[in-house]
């Protein structure tokens, strides 16, 4: 009797072990499927917010709340990012010491190209964001790089976004396993909980868009980067995607990574790709 029981127990254990091994194997070989991911991502938001027009998601909290939408429309007549935009335009056309300009570093002279960033550089095997490309452009021309989070960088990206307004986000994932891995890595970062509060990006921006977090209305993750850079009243100034990532991470009481670290670049790649087709609305203004 006892012996038979032991055998049965052993076989149950064996089956369990086999199941676990199988599950682990499945995770390790999990094949990234960006196209299906992007479709599922978009469907989730459009189903959850049937009244919100697809192109309106890029307006973040204003797409979630009618009162805020009205306030914002008024604000847009005289937006707070105007000064940054003007400064960015001036900086963009001003030549470096060697006579070259930013326009020499970008396709189409850098006008109307925001929707193509971040791109995947197959030579380097890494994701190149717009901010990174701008600083590399500076360094290649013998200029000191800018801070990634605000001021000059935000002004430059504000101008570049402005020239691309209305164009659909168009991120490409080349047929390269490293590109798919970068996408997958960004996805993993997006859904991984971190910090003392144990929040993932998705906790707020997928589970709870439209809900309040303290006095703020949370923006949906769909199209969230299309509005970058943003003027935030809370910051009394402009901030880049890097600033948004680092400040989100510290708000959940985790230690933020370095701006433009591989993880953030992959995250931007993922988040931009799943918002493909939605218009660029940057620079944005947020409470």
């Amino acid at each position, binding site marked *: 009797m006892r012996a038979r029981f032991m055998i049965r127990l052993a076989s149950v254990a064996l089956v369990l072990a086999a199941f676990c091994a199988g599950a682990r194997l499945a995770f390790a070989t999990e094949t990234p499927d960006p196209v299906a991911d992007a479709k599922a991502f978009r469907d989730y938001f459009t189903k959850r917010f049937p009244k919100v027009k697809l192109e309106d998601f890029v307006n973040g909290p204003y797409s979630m709340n009618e009162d805020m939408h009205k306030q914002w429309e008024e604000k847009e007549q005289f937006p707070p990012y105007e000064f940054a935009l003007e400064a960015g335009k001036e900086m963009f056309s001003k030549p470096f010491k060697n006579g070259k300009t930013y326009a020499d570093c970008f396709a189409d002279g850098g006008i109307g190209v925001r929707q193509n960033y971040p791109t995947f550089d197959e030579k380097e095997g890494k994701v190149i964001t717009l901010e990174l490309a701008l600083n590399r452009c500076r360094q290649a021309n013998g200029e000191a790089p800018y801070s990634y989070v605000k001021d000059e960088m935000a002004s430059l990206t504000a101008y570049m976004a402005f020239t691309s307004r209305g164009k659909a986000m168009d991120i490409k994932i080349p047929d390269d396993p490293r590109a798919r891995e970068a996408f997958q890595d960004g996805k993993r970062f997006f859904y991984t909980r971190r910090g003392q509060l144990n929040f993932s990006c998705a906790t707020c921006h997928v589970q709870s868009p439209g809900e309040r977090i303290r006095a703020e209305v949370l923006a949906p993750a769909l199209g969230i980067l299309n509005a970058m850079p943003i003027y935030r*009243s809370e910051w009394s100034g402009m901030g880049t995607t890097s600033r948004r990532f680092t400040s989100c991470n510290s708000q959940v009481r985790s230690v933020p990574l370095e701006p433009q670290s591989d993880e953030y670049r992959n995250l931007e790649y993922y988040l931009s790709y799943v918002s493909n087709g939605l218009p660029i609305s940057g620079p944005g203004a947020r409470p």
Partner: protein
Amino acid sequence: MASTIRVRATSNGDITEVQALIQHPMDTGFVKDAKGEIIPPHFIQQLTFEHDGKPVFVADWGAAVSKDPYVKFSFKGGKKGDELKIGWIDNKGATDATSAKIQ
């Protein structure tokens, strides 16, 4: 340097609506910089909008007004094409002024 003042004034025949955005740090004098040193107070003390030689809007401001302030108001008596003069003076004595046509 470009003007620190952006103005837009529109008339509907009876009422002129004015919007303005001013670039100014509006430092309160209570904030410390990254090195831990107090940023000295630096804010606009008076903002004036003049129409036809007469002030139509005067604001006595202090440190409590936010950075890059935005103002909106309306007044009666303006016509399309009239000139509106705008100027500010801050606590360091700096000034800026501009003018705009009512549209």
